[in-house]
């Protein structure tokens, strides 16, 4: 049943199978019971009719004789007198000649070729051309006449099975109708019940999806006791994942500190004593230190970028981050007095790690502040699927070739780029983690405009 994915489909399928088997068995049992009881009733009727017939026998003449239609109706079953009524009767003497045959036979012979011996009672199914299917009771008796003579006779009554078969068929129809009705009703009720019962599971599923998409931090609300453990475990998992990420970042920060402080010490020590003779060696050492630092920085920053994996990260509002960065950069480039205009839609949000967004925006805006003549413009707006950010300046702009080399910088760790940041390469890599794009064009302000489009986390 691996193919049946839905719990509801599984339950409905198995309940249907169970109901069909149950009702089929019940139906067979009821059908057989009904048939048996009808057979019983019919045989009793046959016996009564034979006895009734015997009671009408006139033996005063020393011979058996039976009345004809002239007899009063109540003394003989009227069906014997109705043509093809489905009830036939006859009395045979022991030489096989019919002493009496009922009018319902319409002059035909009673369809029998067997004579009983005295005392024998025999039920027989008869399938004779010209007659409906019949069941006959043949009863052999030895008749004691008043004159002490005796003779063997066979009394025979046959009943048509047709009305019985019809009743059986009608019974079956009613039975099937009811069973079908009950089955369908039960399935409908069950389906509705399942919707109700599975409601918490659906909620759980929806919330997990929202957590994945970064729209929700944890699973909330009350869950039934059967799945409250599952929901709690999921929350624990989300929490563990988040803490693992935090620990990972702390480790990276510690690593950065413990690697960079000695590097800083070495550079500072090198610059302390300027000795003409040692200068070439000092310069070479400085270059090596710079390369080491670039590699360490680049790899650490790469490792720090989380990407769109963020389990349970809240949507990040873009505006405060841009505002913080503007204040930071205004402080850093205080003497330059850059006029930075922000055009950030208040509800622009980013689905992912706030650190990653800050890194992207920080590098782009820093670039703008660095290369502008005096103006920088930042815009951001989001669609349901994407966040679109542009940072433009009034500097000299970036050509496509320059952009290509800038974006590649740092990709090869052994590349030596003294004095050049690795900012844009980090931006490009971080943007790629979010399946986004980074493009360069010309800004309205006259300089370069860098445009980043980021996919919403959790979307392909």
């Amino acid at each position: 049943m691996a193919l049946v994915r839905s719990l509801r489909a599984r339950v409905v399928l198995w309940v249907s199978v169970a109901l069909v088997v149950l009702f089929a068995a019940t139906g067979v049992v009821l059908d057989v019971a009904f048939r048996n009881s009808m057979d019983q009733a019919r045989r009793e009727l046959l016996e009564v009719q034979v006895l009734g017939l015997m009671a009408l026998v006139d033996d005063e003449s020393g011979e058996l004789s039976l009345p004809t239609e002239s007899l009063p109706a109540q003394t003989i079953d009227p069906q014997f007198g109705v043509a093809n009524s489905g009830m036939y009767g006859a009395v045979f003497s022991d030489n096989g000649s019919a002493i009496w045959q009922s009018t319902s036979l319409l002059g035909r012979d009673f369809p029998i070729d067997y004579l009983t011996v005295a005392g024998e009672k025999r039920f027989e199914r008869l399938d004779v051309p010209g007659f409906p299917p019949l069941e006959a009771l043949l009863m052999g008796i030895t008749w004691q006449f008043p004159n002490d003579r005796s003779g063997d006779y066979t009394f025979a009554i046959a009943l048509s099975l047709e009305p019985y078969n019809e009743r059986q068929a009608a019974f079956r129809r009613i039975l099937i109708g009811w069973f079908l009705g009950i089955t369908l009703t039960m399935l409908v009720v069950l389906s509705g019940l399942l919707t109700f019962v599975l409601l918490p599971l659906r909620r759980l599923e929806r919330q997990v999806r929202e957590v994945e998409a970064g729209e929700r931090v944890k699973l909330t609300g009350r869950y039934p006791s059967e799945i409250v453990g599952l929901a709690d475990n999921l929350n624990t998992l989300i929490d563990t994942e988040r803490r693992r990420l935090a620990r990972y970042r702390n480790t990276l920060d510690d690593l950065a500190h413990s690697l960079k402080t000695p590097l800083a010490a070495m550079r500072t020590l090198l610059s302390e004593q300027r000795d003409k003779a040692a200068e070439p060696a000092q310069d070479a050492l400085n270059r090596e230190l710079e390369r080491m630092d670039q590699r360490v920085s680049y790899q650490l920053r790469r490792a720090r970028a989380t990407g769109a994996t963020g389990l349970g990260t809240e949507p990040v509002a873009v505006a405060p981050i841009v505002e913080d960065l503007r204040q930071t950069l205004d402080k850093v480039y205080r003497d330059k007095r850059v006029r930075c205009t922000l055009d950030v839609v208040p509800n622009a949000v980013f689905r992912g790690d706030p650190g990653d967004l800050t890194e992207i925006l920080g590098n782009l805006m820093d670039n703008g502040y660095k290369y502008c003549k005096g103006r920088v413009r930042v815009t951001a707006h989001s669609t349901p699927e994407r966040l679109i950010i542009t940072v433009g300046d009034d500097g000299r702009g970036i050509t496509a070739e320059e952009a290509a080399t800038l974006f590649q910088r740092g990709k090869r760790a052994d590349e030596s780029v003294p004095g050049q940041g690795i900012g844009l390469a980090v931006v490009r890599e971080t943007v790629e983690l979010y399946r986004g794009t980074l493009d360069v064009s010309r800004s309205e302000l006259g300089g370069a405009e860098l445009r980043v489009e980021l996919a919403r986390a959790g979307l392909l």
Partner: protein
Amino acid sequence: MRLLLVEDDPNLSRSLAAQLEQAGYSVEKSTDGREGLYYAREYPVDLAIVDLGLPSMSGVELIKQLRADGKEYPILVLTARDRWQDKVEVLKLGADDYVVKPFNVEELLARVDALLRRAGGWAQSELVCGPIVLDTRTQEVKVNDAKLELTSFEYKLLEYLMLHAGEVLSKTQITEALYSEDFERDSNVIEVFIGRLRRKLDPENSYKPIETLRGRGYRLAAERGAPDAD
């Protein structure tokens, strides 16, 4: 100018302090956060250089405490973290600038210089008071466009006075700013240097650039005239 350097790496701390002193600053060193906070509270400081990863008390906490105490002098942060989130956080806390390790000492000196200038209300590296023009970058002094030859100590004294142009500075303040702690203090020395500086700046005794306020100290009286470019 008295700087406080809070950095736990002994080599970095010693070498950086040596180079800062060489550049004319007096430097107090501290190797852990608590000690740094004690110095910052107890001694007059013009600028603090604080490493973020410190033992006993983190740099972040130290900066918070200093700002909570109402200390307003500039704080320059040394940090190994170069993520923008960290930079934003540090500046939001109240630091004024940051330098990412491993830094270039010259760049750090330029940042320190710029921070001190700004703290004195100067936007440019060229300080102008009346006819006196002092360039903090080249350490050149001109009076009425004529270059002036000053000794290193005279220059430091003039720079300090000009950075605080218009403010009254006591002898103690000046001594503490210009000498390291272990220097034998003698307020007469300041008087002597002020006298020499006056003769060099104003040989004809025409515009009296440095006022003496009896019992209170000195003030650079020449009007600030930094042309605010752009």
